[in-house]
């Protein structure tokens, strides 16, 4: 068994164990054990990766393997990772394991819930290790479909509407994506008389500019929808608002990162010339929605809506940095994906905990939570600080990298949007602190709020795990920066 396939095997085995298990109490334990093993394995993978690099392996992808599984179209199970994928895998496993802990007390259909959650995770892991466009696409679909069930069954509020909207928009995006991918396939170099879906092969002999110009928007928008690109972001606030806690965490923390990752690995890497040509248009969209999302968050009163808009703003920063097409910005962009993944997962976890106790997500109806649930409140303050880019937290390291990278472009358009992006941190501070001030500080508004359960051990585990990662990256960002940077470098060289 090769190293990367184990990443898929572990969740699949966990799912099987869940299916055959009959004790209600054991479901969550099985899920937690499975995902903890996955997390440890991801750490092991990181160390293995580092030691291979240390030993002088400079090939773009390592741990590669390629098995053909659909001969007529030359579709392969081609896998391999570089530093970026390793980092994303680590993020995914950490967010997933926290998600399992947060769902410890799920009441309805726990078995089905954890099965869907883990199927979703399997899709994400598969997505990040795939080097074959078609396989990648299949894994992507594998991740999106459980989402519909998770929101539709375990969600709250207008969950059918939200689930439908989310799924339809993502399916629509998939359609665009499929067009793009098939386009890439049909223009790919011929190897032994056959076209290929292999990312590496296509990257080394990209198609002609005119074809790139045709297919680039399909892929960019296709992945962009998932990454909440304006104006295709509206599924995200509704989807988050209705989704159960763990699903919001996984969705915002990991699934939306697949959008950024796809833009990066497929759209920009495989069609660099078109990216250069058309970047101005998408730069306006992404750069604009940094501020747009921030101002959108300013007027919301539902905690989940606030964070959904905040995600729009922060993920627009990811796309913005990607469009800068230089090594520092790209590295910053990947850092931002990881940082935002952790931060937003923690945000949604805490929102879930608060909602469970107050039965409302409306900030104007809450107040003084610091007094009754100090642990959760303090965690919320900390993650808020991380989100507004406080130094010492991961958000700052990522944003600073992006700003420094983006500021090296002296074109007027780039300058203007870089300045806008920097100033967005002011608005971010406003909407974060508004929540902190209204919800956590001030007098307690409702009599029933005086009696609330303190945070439980599984809630603390999830929150502390995520916060430790946020702080760890924030205080010592250099190893992660180096890990990503060394993989970005050859990509940038190739496309310039």
């Amino acid at each position, binding site marked *: 068994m090769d190293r990367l396939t184990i990443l898929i095997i572990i969740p699949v085995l966990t799912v099987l164990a869940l299916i055959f298990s009959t004790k209600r109490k054991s479901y969550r334990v099985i899920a937690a054990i499975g995902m903890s093993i996955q997390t440890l394995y991801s750490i092991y993978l990181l160390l293995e990766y580092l030691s291979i690099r240390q030993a002088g392996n400079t090939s773009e992808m390592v741990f590669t393997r390629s098995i053909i599984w659909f001969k007529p179209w030359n579709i392969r199970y081609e896998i391999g990772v570089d530093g970026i994928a390793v980092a994303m895998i680590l993020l995914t496993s950490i967010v997933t394991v926290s998600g399992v802990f947060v769902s410890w007390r799920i009441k309805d259909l726990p078995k089905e819930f954890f099965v869907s959650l883990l199927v979703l995770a399997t899709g994400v892991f598969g997505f990040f290790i795939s080097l074959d466009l078609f396989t990648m696409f299949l894994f992507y679909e594998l991740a999106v479909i459980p989402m519909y069930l998770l929101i539709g069954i375990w969600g709250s509020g207008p969950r059918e509407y939200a689930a439908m909207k989310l799924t339809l928009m993502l399916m629509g995006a998939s359609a665009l994506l499929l*067009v793009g991918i098939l386009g890439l396939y049909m223009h790919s170099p011929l190897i032994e008389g056959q076209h290929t879906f292999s990312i590496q092969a296509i990257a080394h002999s990209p198609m002609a500019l005119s074809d790139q110009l045709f297919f680039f928007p399909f892929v960019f928008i296709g992945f962009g929808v998932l990454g909440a690109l304006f104006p295709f972001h509206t599924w995200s606030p509704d989807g988050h608002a209705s989704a159960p806690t763990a699903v919001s965490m996984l969705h915002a923390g990991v699934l939306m990162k697949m959008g950024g990752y796809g833009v990066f690995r497929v759209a920009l890497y495989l069609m660099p010339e078109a990216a250069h040509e058309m970047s101005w248009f998408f730069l306006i969209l992404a750069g604009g929605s940094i501020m747009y999302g921030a101002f959108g968050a300013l*007027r919301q009163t539902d905690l989940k809506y606030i964070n959904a808009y905040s995600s729009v703003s922060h993920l627009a920063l990811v796309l913005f940095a990607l469009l800068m097409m230089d090594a520092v910005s790209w590295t910053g962009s990947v850092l931002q994906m990881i940082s935002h993944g952790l931060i937003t997962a923690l945000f949604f976890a805490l929102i879930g905990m608060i909602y469970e106790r107050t039965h409302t997500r409306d900030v104007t109806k809450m107040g003084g939570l610091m007094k009754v649930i100090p642990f959760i409140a303090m965690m919320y303050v900390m993650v808020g600080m991380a989100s*507004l880019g406080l130094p010492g937290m991961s958000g*700052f390291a990522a944003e600073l990298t992006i700003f420094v*990278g983006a500021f*090296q472009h002296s074109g007027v358009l780039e300058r203007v949007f870089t300045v806008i992006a*920097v100033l967005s941190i002011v608005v971010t501070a406003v909407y974060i*602190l508004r929540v902190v001030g209204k919800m956590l500080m001030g007098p307690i508004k409702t009599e029933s709020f005086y009696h609330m359960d303190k945070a439980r051990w599984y809630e603390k585990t999830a929150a502390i795990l995520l916060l430790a990662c946020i702080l760890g990256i924030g205080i010592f960002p250099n190893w992660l920066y180096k890990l990503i940077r060394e993989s970005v470098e050859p990509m940038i060289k190739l496309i310039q």
Partner: protein
Amino acid sequence: MNWSYTIWIPLLPLLSFVINGLFYGRMPKKMSGWLGTSALGISTLLSWVTAWKYFFNTPHQGPYEDITAWHTTWMHLTDRFTIDLGIYLDPISIMMLIVVTTVSFLVHLYSIGYMATEEGRNRYFAWLGLFSFSMLGLVLAPNLIQTYMFWELVGVSSFLLIGYYYDKPSAVKAALKAFIVTRFADGFFLIGILLYSYYSGSFLFEDINNIPAILESNGSLPVFMGLSALTWGLLLIFIGGAGKSAMFPLHIWLPDAMEGPTPVSALIHAATMVVAGVYLVARLFPAFHASDHGFALQIVAIVGTFSSLFAAIIAMTQMDIKRVLAFSTMSQIGYMMTGLGVSGIGEEGLGYTASMFHLFTHAAFKALLFLGAGALIHAVHSNSLKDMGSLRKYMPISHITFLIACLAISGIPPFAGFFSKDLILEAAFEKNKLIYAVGWITAGLTAFYMFRIYFMAFWGEDKVYAHKPHDPGITMTLPLIVLAIASALAGWLPFNEWVTSNHETLHTHFNIGSAAASVAIGLVGIIIAYILYKNPSMTPQKMSNRLGVVYQTVKNKFYVDEFYEGVTQQVILKRIATPIAWFDRHIVDGTMNLIGNTTVRISSIIKGIQSGDFQVYAFGILIAVIGLLVWLNYFIQ
């Protein structure tokens, strides 16, 4: 010589923060306070040792050297932009070390008594440790990014400490205001850093201050509105400094910040954090001085001078003792900015030395004033001057120490403020007569408003007190006494030998005329205050009534807060954020829903199926994809 031990100076407060923070719920009573105090005690000791070693025990010829005592790579962005964390020692950073650790230590000690009955004192001492760590990291920074990082961290500690009484809505509002206003300024600060470093190619102060080298490596710099890009960078950086240092028009957060516990006001909002802007300009002084013939420096001088007068006028009308002190702080920081603004380099660097000197003495007497005010508030349980009177009878130690501080800030010799303020005025006199005149008048106003609160609190009529006021315990009086000694004597320190713009001794001469003029206006201020407030009378009331609108305008702080309130509520929230939220929900999302609904309607017409079935939609998508594929196949061939 080995300086690497200096890493412990910031690390010890950090340790205090971490321990107090982690064991927040399980700490025995009083332990957190003593833990923080001893950590800061050791840091203070190390700082004084460092200063002694640096100024007296290091053999050097010519100027004092800059020493990088310790550094590590935080992020290696590119070979050009490497971000280091480090400890940078030079005369001003060592001076700030002394100021920050000493005041912080005294404030920790004082807080043990002041916060003795507070429930959340573990949290309080944790934040205090965080603040001390961040402030030390800020003053020791060898590059702009580290400065910015710790700059943000002091902002957060300030936010947390202002909001210490978090169930009080006014404190919450003040904390948010402080954070957001300074954050707004910091946005420009960061752009300034990015812009400047784009041309300097480095974040290190030694590269940033080396303007000739930057000009050489860039050929010609872009010019915008007559100013070079570097000057724009510096102006943006100065906005950050003005935000932190509460310069007009970014000062609105400082008076409200008085909602925090009083020792916090002494430490953060008087002695250390608010002078960070001054320190920043001093750090970048060579760049400010050289770029476009010191244009940015002139802006610094104008902003500083205006702020000092503006704040002094408001301070005369406030009834909350802490707010008077807050405006006084703003006014005194204005002096420091003025000092830097009028300064040259080398033998003309009087303003620079004077400014740093004033920063130093101000830290002593303003911390003393706040801690003294804290003692009064502790005794009478009110911030308002209306509730105080004749307190000299009950609180002799507080009385004497407060008086010394008032004399010091009013510029009466031989107290510390006289020397430093007089030097600033002297420097201004040589550069610009108008700035001098404003500074001179402000000195008179300062003496007046300080003695106004002095007479109102310690003289005047005896009030009815619920408990008989008395001097606080030893942990609170000791810091008062130490700071009183410093306020009385610090003026005699030979700052011109230690802290100068080029690290060489500056030759100063005592200007008797200027000194006499400053003392004279100070005395006039004191005498007027004496006449009006020594004995209870209706005269002040009558005078303010006669001034009518003018008085009301001043008392309401020239309605600057209302202006901001209007801009944020009416323009940003109502005219920008609300329309965006509406647009998003109704136009963008509406379009998406419309597409969805139309699809459903059309499909129901075509197929006659009335269903919201997910499978049907998925099937539709599949059909569409296949259709596209077929079409593409033709398109490609």
